[in-house]
């Protein structure tokens, strides 16, 4: 869709071009306004936080708000975001990698090994990408709770592990990954399953663009389904993986609904849920809230800044046009 082309000669006269720049700069100011407020409010010291000067640049830069948002405050009675930030990493990294792998294999089969019914299966899978998740939440919670009952012995065994005191944190940490209701493992399962449609879509479109002759040639050379994937398609897949990984990382990191429904304990909550709790309590000052919001946005923002090009591709794939 994007095509490099010869620069088009400028046709508009100067005043009109000035107007274009003026509008674009005003629009950019609108888009950057919240970032400006986030930054200056978060960077102000507690003495300087004053509503009358909320738009003014801070006189003394202070990271105290960030420290408070990260660590929380026992005295004021609110939890910091550090724990949930880590939870989000433990959740997002494995869920992203697993769903990228699954999507790659599904996409490969649907693009190069079409079978009777695959034309129905593919759109049927895609539908899962658009459903309002409210329509699956009730049975989802029930099923995860049921899985929790089944995996209880496993969690219990983990918790009863005899480990040196220095490693006492390890078994409970590991128990959080047993997929069930109220665990990080349960959330990973949910994100992997509901990530199947989009990852399959992106990879299928990606592999569809790879000439089938390559696959046919490998077949003639005696390669089978797995061999072709391993030696022909997979080595060509890196750009596809980058797009899918960025897409999944961003959407899982930013997810709120599943985190809210599946994790009730603060110990396993992802950062979006923790941020919402932080911002929802009236005891937390605005500058701490803004610092917290920036912390929650930072990982995906960094990815966007560094890998923006691939981010774009994922976005446009999300609109079904590869």
């Amino acid at each position: 869709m994007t095509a490099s082309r010869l620069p088009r000669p400028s046709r508009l006269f100067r005043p009109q071009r000035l107007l274009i720049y003026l509008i674009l700069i005003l629009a950019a100011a609108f888009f950057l306004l919240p970032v400006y407020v986030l930054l200056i409010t978060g960077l102000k010291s507690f003495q300087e936080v004053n509503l009358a000067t909320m738009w003014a640049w801070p006189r003394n830069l202070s990271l105290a708000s960030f420290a408070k948002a990260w660590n929380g405050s026992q005295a004021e009675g609110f939890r910091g975001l550090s724990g949930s930030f880590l939870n989000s990493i433990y959740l997002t990294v494995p869920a992203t990698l697993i769903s990228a792998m699954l999507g790659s294999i599904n996409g490969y089969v649907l693009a190069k090994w079409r079978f009777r019914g695959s034309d129905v299966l593919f759109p049927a899978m895609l539908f899962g990408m658009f459903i309002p998740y409210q329509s699956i939440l009730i049975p989802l919670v029930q099923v995860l709770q049921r899985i929790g009952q089944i995996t209880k012995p496993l969690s219990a065994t983990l918790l009863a592990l005899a480990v040196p005191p220095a490693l006492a944190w390890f078994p409970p940490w590991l128990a959080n990954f047993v997929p069930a209701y109220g665990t990080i493992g349960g959330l990973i399962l949910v994100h992997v399953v509901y990530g199947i449609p989009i990852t399959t879509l992106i990879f299928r479109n990606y592999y569809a663009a790879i000439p089938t002759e390559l696959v046919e040639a490998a077949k003639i050379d005696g390669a089978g389904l797995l061999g072709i994937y391993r030696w022909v398609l997979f080595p060509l897949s890196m750009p596809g993986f980058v797009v899918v990984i960025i897409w999944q990382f961003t959407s899982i990191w930013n997810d709120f609904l599943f985190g809210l429904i599946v994790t009730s304990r603060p110990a396993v909550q992802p950062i979006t849920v923790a941020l919402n709790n932080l911002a929802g309590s009236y005891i937390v000052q605005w500058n701490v809230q803004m610092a917290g919001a920036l912390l929650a946005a930072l990982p995906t923002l960094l990815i966007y800044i560094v890998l923006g090009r691939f981010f774009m591709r994922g976005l446009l794939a999300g609109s079904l046009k590869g």
Partner: protein
Amino acid sequence: MRRLNRDRILSIALITPSAVAILVFVYGFIGFTGFASLTQWDTLFPDYTFVGLRNYAKLFTIDRFQLDLRNTVTFTAFFLLACLSVGFGLAVLIDQRIKGEGLFRGIFLFPMAISFVVTGVVWRWLLAPGTEQTGSYGVNLLFEQAGLGFLRNGWYTAPIIWHISSESTLGILLQSIGLGFLANSKFGISWPMLSVVIAATWQMSGYTMAMYLAGLRGIPDELREAARVDGASEFQIYRYIIVPLLTPITLSAVIILGHISLKIFDLVVAMTGSGPGFSTDVPAFYMFDTTFRGNHFAEGAGIAMIILLVVAVLIIPYLIYSARMEVQQ
């Protein structure tokens, strides 16, 4: 030949786990939710006594649900209008071979990388109106400092609903033709909802821009040149050539943005919650509230099915259309 057969089976085996997962977690779960919506399950403990469509009939008589529908219509209409016009406008401007294109594109698109929760928290602060005692906050304060004090308003805290008054001429006219019920705040436009629209547009209009920009870049220059040779003005070129050629993009954008707005939840929770007098309440939030806080599972399931139905009406034709387009290619 034997190898090929084995590979056929293997290929189906590879996709089976995902297919089964989708079958269970999407279609099975939807089926269960649909079933639950037909029961009288109203506590933590499932009660599968069949009651038919009673929950649905009841829902449409509940004030909160009626207001939610009004708010969803307000939100969807203004959100689509704002995103499409801002997105198209920015795309056209960026397409004029300007300096710093990459920078502008980056600035307009970065909100897409951010969680709706972060957006909600930030815009709640920006649009917090302030009180008599504290003076103005946020954007109101900015207006004040810029000498635009008349623009100050209560944003999402002012429970203003624009609607046709039953005493107005139009209201009386409507009554006389039997449409008096329209002159009611339930058929109005919720002002607090527009604050949420501002935040959502901030987040999603860059995406719309990216879609339009990709579309604009796909239109060959020869078309414009030919029109120019024929004496068409720049405006005419856009009106009669570019905009019609971008119709598929507009359609995609309407579907994508529309289904987001029908499902909107995170942003509302983080920014306003239900709002004063349910003025920013939406079905997805009502569903969460009544199901997971109130344990009215059958009622929640009913709301979920209604949202799903509306989304499906939008999405399924689109999926079929996309699949057909692909076959043609």
